């Protein structure tokens, strides 16, 4: 079946329909990761957006459910050049086509994704519609596209009830250390598969309690802390600061999440209380932006954002550069930052935008990129260790 992607500037791409059979209006963004489409699809930060993968061959290894970053896919639509006819991977549970249909996600394939990407790069992020209706009327569609906003999507994606993830009691709970798994012919012949390898080599966080405010969290944030031994309690975004302050936690983790940070005034107010309570706080992405807003800084919308797994960020304290996983359309305005509140800790090497803040006189540091990776490079995973170190220091002080 034919499908159409109509952009708010009137551009139309014709392709073939994939996934659920329904029309959708959304904000169109692109992601440049070459692998990790399932992690992208299940990242709650994409709520309210339809994502175009710039890598042209998608679905090659199918869907491995254990790689999902949340319980379901969040993008309103998926835009690809080509979906693989068959998946090939030893862990594959289903094809991506099945996954999209099962989860009611519509999409379009067979379009010139590079041309679309160039358009978004030049004109900035645009709204668009994916439809199979060949008789669309542009004069009706365009006003709908222009009117669309992602809105208050955090409410949509956050968990409904708090829950706790217990920290690993032994290193072996995390599976074998990366690559040390030994090939076992007998197990192989029986079809037993090696567990996913672990990325941690020490349980530095044993005995620490962390509250994670779920603003649309990717599962690997909690998992990264639990794998290091921390007990992690995940709270819905609407949780009052008081509850967390009284919870006896060693630290608070503010997660990633979707949408315009300024659409979350209530959350910002609660985060301000956490800030005032002098807690140890680490924040990622939306959490980083909300903390900045709570502390009086400003954010703005970028032309087309950063979405991919290849962005260099520089740690200003050490001069070291990390390749990071990124997914954001808004950024903290570092030019108008009060140094008595916070100073830049990380900067994007490509465009100089802010990638992290260190809060003056507080035990708080926040990053715009994703140390939890998934998808993308694991280079900055030691930031979780840094957070654990900060919590331990407070404990031992």
């Amino acid at each position: 079946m034919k499908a159409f992607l109509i952009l708010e500037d009137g551009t139309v791409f014709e392709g073939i329909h994939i996934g659920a059979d329904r029309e959708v209006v959304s904000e169109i963004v692109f992601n440049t990761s070459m692998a990790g489409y399932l992690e992208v699809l299940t990242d709650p930060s994409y709520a309210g957006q339809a994502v175009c993968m710039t890598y042209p061959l998608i679905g090659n290894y199918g869907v491995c459910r254990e790689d999902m970053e949340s319980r379901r896919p969040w993008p309103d639509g998926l835009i690809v050049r080509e979906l693989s006819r068959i998946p090939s991977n030893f862990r594959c549970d289903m094809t991506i086509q099945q996954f999209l249909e099962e989860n009611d996600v519509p999409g379009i394939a067979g379009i010139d994704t590079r041309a679309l990407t160039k358009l978004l790069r030049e004109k900035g992020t645009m709204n668009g519609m994916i439809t199979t209706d060949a008789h669309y009327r542009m004069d009706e569609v365009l006003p709908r596209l222009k009117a669309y906003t992602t809105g208050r999507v955090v409410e949509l994606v956050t968990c409904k009830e708090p829950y706790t993830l217990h920290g690993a009691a032994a290193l072996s709970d995390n599976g074998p250390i990366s690559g040390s798994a030994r090939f076992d012919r007998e197990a192989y012949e029986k079809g037993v598969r090696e567990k996913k390898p672990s990325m941690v080599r020490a349980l530095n966080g044993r005995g620490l309690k962390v509250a994670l405010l779920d603003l649309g969290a990717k599962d690997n944030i909690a998992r990264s802390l639990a794998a290091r031994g921390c007990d992690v309690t995940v709270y819905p975004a609407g949780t009052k600061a008081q509850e967390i302050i009284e919870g006896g936690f060693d630290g608070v983790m503010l997660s990633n999440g979707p949408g315009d940070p300024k659409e979350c005034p209530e959350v910002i107010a609660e985060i301000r209380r956490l800030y005032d309570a002098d807690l140890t706080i680490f924040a990622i992405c939306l959490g980083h932006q909300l903390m900045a807003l709570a502390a009086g800084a400003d954010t703005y919308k970028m032309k087309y954002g950063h979405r991919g797994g290849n962005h260099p960020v520089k740690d200003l304290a050490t001069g070291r550069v990390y390749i990071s996983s990124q997914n954001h359309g808004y950024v903290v305005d570092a030019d108008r930052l009060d140094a008595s509140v916070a100073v830049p800790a990380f900067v994007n090497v490509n465009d100089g935008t802010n990638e992290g803040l260190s809060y003056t006189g507080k035990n708080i540091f926040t990053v715009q990129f994703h140390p939890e990776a998934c998808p993308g490079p694991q280079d900055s995973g030691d930031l979780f260790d840094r957070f654990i170190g900060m919590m331990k220091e407070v404990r031992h002080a």
Partner: protein
Amino acid sequence: MPKNPNVKRVLVIGSGPIVIGQAAEFDYAGTQACRSLKEEGMEVILVNSNPATIMTDGDIADKVYIEPLTTSVIEEIILKEKPDSLLPNMGGQAGLNLGMELDESGFLKAHGVTLLGTTAATIKKAEDRLEFKETMEKIGEPCAPSLVVENIEDGVAFAAQIGYPVVLRPAYTLGGSGGGIAHNRAELEEILANGLRLSRVGQVLVERCIAGWKEIEYEVMRDSAGNCITVCNMENIDPVGVHTGDSIVVAPSQTLSDKEYQMLRSSALNIINELGITGGCNVQFALHPTSFEYCVIEVNPRVSRSSALASKATGYPIAKVAAKIALGYTLDEIKNAITGKTYASFEPTLDYCVVKIPRLPFDKFITAKRTLTTQMKATGEVMSICNNFEGALMKAIRSLEQHVDCLRSYDFSALTKEELIDRMKIVDDQRIYLIAEAVRKGIDYDTIHEITMVDVWFIDKIAILTEMEAALEKGPLTVELLREAKRLEFPDNVIARLTGRTEEEVRQMRYDNGIVAAFKMVDTCAAEFAASTPYYYSVFGSETEAVETHPKKKVLVLGSGPIRIGQGIEFDYCSVHATWAFAKEGYETVIINNNPETVSTDFDIADKLYFEPLTPEDVENIVRVEHPDGAVVQFGGQTAIKLTESLMKMGVPILGTKAEDVDAAEDRELFDRILEETQIPRAAGGTVYTAEEAKEVANRLGYPVLVRPSYVLGGQGMQIAISDQEIEEFMAVINRYEQDHPILVDKYLQGKELEVDAVCDGTDILIPGIMEHIERTGVHSGDSISVYPAPTVSDKVKETIADYSARLARALHVVGLINIQFIAMDDEVYVIEVNPRSSRTVPYISKVTGIPIVDLATQVIIGRKIRDLGYEPGLQPAADYYAIKMPVFSFEKIRGAEISLGPEMKSTGECLGIAKTFNEALYKAFLGAGVNLPKHKQMIITVKDADKGEAIEVARRFEKLGYIIYATRSTAAALNEAGVKARKVNKIQQESPTVMDLILGHKIDLVIDTPTQGRDKNRDGFLIRRTAIETGVNCITAMDTAAALVTSLENAASQGRMTLTDIATIAKSRAHKG
């Protein structure tokens, strides 16, 4: 970190002659590094024994030494030039080994020279099998269970412990020489014994066989501050077991989930960090196909073939960045040259798919085994880019120029299912065609996967292509079907063949329906940032990004495709220099090529680069976008020449010598007419199509005769026949492929062979010099030792050659380059052949005479006259030194290849010896080619009857040098009779000790074995030669070569310190005179 202020004079070591496993990629890397260093204001001193390279030009480095790559030569250069630093990691394994040796001996420290880039300690950690394993264990990175052994007993014991099959990898060898997989004890003993001999340190690694696992590579960069990035990863379609250089490789990986991708990426970063590499590095992994288990196969702490491929696949200039890192810069200080906005500290992301296919030399060595192993056999490779895998594969296949254009090009349809299944078990270069046939026959994916271990994803992609073949065959050819076939990059001629139409009809149908190629940009960033570098690839069904530009006159330069025997790096040298010369004259330049190893496909050589197959259809797609004012074909070897007619049909004027004149040189009848007009003699001959006709001509002329196809490279298929029977055999070989042109049969004349490369402006001719071959006619010119200036011919012969050259060039209306080969018998000169185009010897003669002939040819092509360029026409005065070009072979890599020299070219590369005296130049040339004698002072001589007289003289001279001579029965008798003491040895079938036992006993320096005239059918001779080569013994198959070698050794005995010649000064002093 800013650059290190103490670095001002840098010595760069190149990789030497082109051999299998160490090819043009190091000219690309070295050239890029030198330019990058010069950009930073460094003075660059370069040493490389290979004169065909671009890096050994005076405009790439400040001082250029084309000298043998030995420690003593480099020590001399250091003493003379006093560099403060040495950059060893651009010259492949050869360069790295030299850097290590100089560091280990303390020479560098004693002379205040710092090793730049990676340190010697790091190199040792990465290269020494034992240290590497220990390091990996320390950081928890797994290696396959393995043991380094120094003798056979330990190897046998360890293999018994870990179980067969086991893989054997000798330490410090090129392209895995001497390695292999042993399935049982007998095989183990054989391969191990050989590997121990070839290893520089007498060590071989015995390890668990992980054949069949996925082979994944990462290209990693690290700076001195510890910042790391991966440039790209690559997946080998051929799983572990086939050397990555012989595998079909795709970038990025296709069948890895993010978990696997990142697991291996993190591992690669861990490894480069632990090793402390600064610069580029290649990490190879084996990944178990159905688990997360992986093993580190090896690490190359330097730029490599893979890094050249990764650079071209992503647009990230690894060698350039590595050179800057060596100077002290960090990744975040180096700009990304493609975008001009981002920095080197980011990871390229692709929005296309890249396929590399090796160019294997089995068309040259028809007796060789086609099987692929862990020992690399490919001489070159092609790369293609498309936005779908099927298209990239189809484009790569037709880029090979091996009579293949689709998955049907090898016909296995006659095989039954069972036969196919058996045949697929053999791992060779035809495997993808077999898989395609298996799919057509309905063998299920799982069965194919179990046999080949090729991932089912790739098998399905091959199936998509075979389904399209079937759909096209079945018809009808609808517009939609055509559109889809083109998306999958089916060329028009294949569609025509499958649908029973003409190619013209298919093309017309495409144009009528707007199905045309679009061009996309390689920009390192998947369009996230605007890129300013026009580096393009074609796709169908997309919008085009290439814009036609009209700032100035535009010239299309056609490259020479993959490196193969007979068409090597020399033609890339010519293409690049022509491009630079056109640019200097104000032209906009456009290069089309498909070879990822070369300088010409670097994105900043031409104004625009199209990375595309060199077929008429692919070229036409580009012509339709660019509308060039003209094309030059005379610099790109046969690949470019073959496109002449098509370009003219497209309406693109051919610049320089006209197509009909090129034809006149190749077409026997036209050429005979020209020779008659110009009154130049040649060997009598005729043109034929069939064996019957050939025999008739041969008998009329009298044997021996030379048989060869016209329009070929490097004498491909050329043979000397001595009987009707041989004529039949050779004609059958030539006619395996349909011949568009007649076959030539000429009287074989044995005399001195001479050669000139010249520039002609239509009237005047400039001949830089005459080259004389040491081997008499009968040995291909590319395999002969070539001496400039010609040492033994009379002035009369030289005058005659100059005169004939001028007459021929004028008669053929040559505008640009011309190469002519002559035979001189006494004072009579005959012409052998004329090529109105660039030749293999162009870079060599340009460098040793200091006359930039490609540059001059380019200026002539755009209308200038030789006299206006500051040169007096005619033969230029000879130099006051000798420059000798020595062929270099890779026979040890190709099991079963016949090594004896003949009219068909077999060498893969060359090196130069340059000195004031002939003898020293000859000595240097042999040394550069790796002939470093004497060692044991024992040799074997076994020659055919006709050579016995000369053999006596040569043997006498060897005897005088203290050599003990062994000889087979009749040779020994002849020698002893002449008073040369020779010990008789038995032939192979006779009782021990035989000639084979002697060779295998490792006490032999040299074997002189001249095969009987024509093709050697004597298995003995073949076996002796193969055994010698495979055990690392020098083997000479022509008496002239043997005589030259003994001259060189006599000289070595009396030789003091070697003299050094700076090539850059030759060019400069010539420029002053000019």
